[in-house]
């Protein structure tokens, strides 16, 4: 499929450009904002002399583009930092050193990634099943009571903030009914069963909220497809309602679902901030909140970039998948 291959390449190139532009914007915003960058980076315990040193090291007197260039260099080739007492080498891709812990930002992020990934992927499975299933059910039973109930529930789901549902779930399930202990993260490699049990509540909280949106999208897309001419054709050929809904109407919802899902996953990979905070999961999102509270700038910027990377990547993949799902797109 020559046309398709070209399409994929074009999208990939576009993604790279977007990522690049994103990094410029973020860099500019954070390192140009008011506040002494050197002071913030070095931290409150630095002496003025150390701050000076950091300032020189960060090339703060250089024009902006030079600083950005050094930043890029760091990503590609690594950098050396001296934080007052010693020199530390930060290997490529280098996103800086956390001033709190002197750890490499990237290492920090990668250590927390499995938690976030576990949360994201597990929720995804759940929300797809619940969301799409609810959508299909409400279309299958349209005009009846079931549909109205589902629509109302969906609406309620969309209107509840995730931390409220999570709270309620925790209180009810762990506190009152004592069905589960309060969640504490157990790595998959240690104990798969415990890993799953502990993640069950976070998964459910996220999934219940997200599935409401998915149910709505599925339903809206399916209803729109059902009103189209080609469905009329198949009805006119005696195709049963089940096939019409399951095969033709649902197919029409595939493309928007792919797009939304990819975006969601991309964002979640950068850290499901609220859920992680609520359930105390040591993931990227919670790390971000902590870093923000103490203004650990390298960590903050690094995480924004990593999340941006995931989102751009996910959107690029989504574009390609979308084109696979709807071949007409390639022609544009």
């Amino acid at each position, binding site marked *: 499929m020559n046309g398709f291959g070209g399409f994929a390449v074009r999208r990939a190139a576009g993604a790279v450009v977007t990522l690049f532009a994103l990094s410029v914007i973020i860099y500019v*915003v954070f390192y140009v904002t008011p506040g002494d960058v050197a002071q913030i980076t070095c931290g409150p315990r630095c002496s003025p002399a150390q701050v000076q040193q950091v300032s020189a090291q960060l090339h703060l007197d250089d024009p902006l583009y030079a600083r950005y260039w050094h930043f890029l260099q760091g990503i590609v080739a690594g950098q050396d930092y001296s934080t007052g007492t010693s020199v530390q080498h930060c290997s490529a891709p280098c996103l800086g050193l956390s001033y709190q812990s002197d750890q490499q930002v990237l290492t920090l992020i990668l250590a927390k990634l499995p938690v976030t990934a576990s949360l994201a992927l597990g929720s995804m499975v759940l929300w797809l099943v619940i969301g799409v299933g609810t959508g299909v059910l409400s279309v299958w039973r349209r005009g009846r009571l079931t549909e109205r109930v589902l629509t109302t529930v969906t609406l309620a789901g969309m209107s509840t903030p995730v931390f409220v549902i999570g*709270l309620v779930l925790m209180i009810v399930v762990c506190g009152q009914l004592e069905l589960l202990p309060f969640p504490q993260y157990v790595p998959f490699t240690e104990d798969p069963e415990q890993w799953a049990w502990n993640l069950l509540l976070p998964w459910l909280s996220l999934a219940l909220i997200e599935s409401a*949106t998915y149910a709505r999208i599925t339903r809206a897309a399916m209803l729109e497809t059902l009103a189209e001419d080609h469905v*009329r054709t198949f009805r006119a050929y005696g195709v049963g309602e089940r096939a019409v809904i399951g095969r033709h109407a649902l197919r029409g919802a595939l493309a928007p679902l792919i797009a939304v899902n990819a975006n969601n996953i991309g964002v979640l990979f950068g850290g499901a901030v*609220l859920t992680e905070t609520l359930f105390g999961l040591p993931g990227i999102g919670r790390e971000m909140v902590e870093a923000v509270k103490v203004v650990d700038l390298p960590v903050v910027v690094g995480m924004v970039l990593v999340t941006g990377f995931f989102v751009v990547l996910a959107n690029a993949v989504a574009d390609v998948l979308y084109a696979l799902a709807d071949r007409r797109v390639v022609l544009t």
Partner: protein
Amino acid sequence: MSEAVLAVETPGADAPGVSGARQFWRRLRTRRAALVAASVVALLVLVALTAPLLTALEGQDPTTYHPSLVDSARGGVPVGSFGGIGADHWLGVEPQTGRDLFARLVYGARVSLGVALAATVVQLVLGVAVGLAAGLGNRWVDQLLTRVADIFVAMPLMIVALALLAVVPTSFPRPVLVALVVGLVSGWATLAKLVRAQTLTLKEADYVAAARLSGWGTLRIARRELLPGLAAPVITFAAILVPTNISVEAALSFLGVGVRPPTPSWGQMLTSANVWYQAAPQYLLLPAGALFVTVLALTVLGDGVRTALDPRAASRLRVGTGRKGGRS
């Protein structure tokens, strides 16, 4: 919210039918759910606007500490039943600080609605301006602006918002900052893409060509012919934006990076609510309930606005052969 959701849920992109303002109001009036939602929203707005009045009636204010009303021996649990409800404090007091809950709630309404509205305005202005410019401009302008919008669509809202809120010094007025951050980081880019797509479609209409043939210039055509056609999708989108912005503000406050104390915010009140739910359940239930009701009402209202603007969406519920009758 992503593009695909909007592509599916926002109508009017090529609706040829005339839905003048009068028809719109008429249709809106017939939907009961939307009317109920509208009254709830109106009530909330009223409460927010008259917050000082209401608290003056009660005789309290949201920031005064009342240490005597909490039992520090038991960790700050409010004295009295139901968390200290009484004639003085209509809804009880906040654990640990003893601040009046009713006052904090109504002032919190101000923050939630105010920030959300301000953010929405920012998103609308930016989105429509960029979208129009991209749709009307030449290829370079269009490509550039679309690329910029793509970047902003890719920006993960919570993360970037968190980061920005961390970096800007606290001297900057916080609620304004939150509104700006929420407005600038997300939402407008998707609106811009929508406006651009709609502009491109409307641009091709024959009556626009006819206007050009009459001798009108681009700006005037944009104003007279295109903007009215944009009203429907933009309004629909705005109706989705407001509840989203409320949720985002609540989330940021929940995390502690939104409005700073002593300004009350519903999200903020939920930060420690899980600790107190047994002793003072209303401390959890009230802000959570308020949030829920607000977002729900706004979403239902948004739904109603959407179907009032594009009745075809509603009639699709009756699908036999998919054709509305009358076409021979």
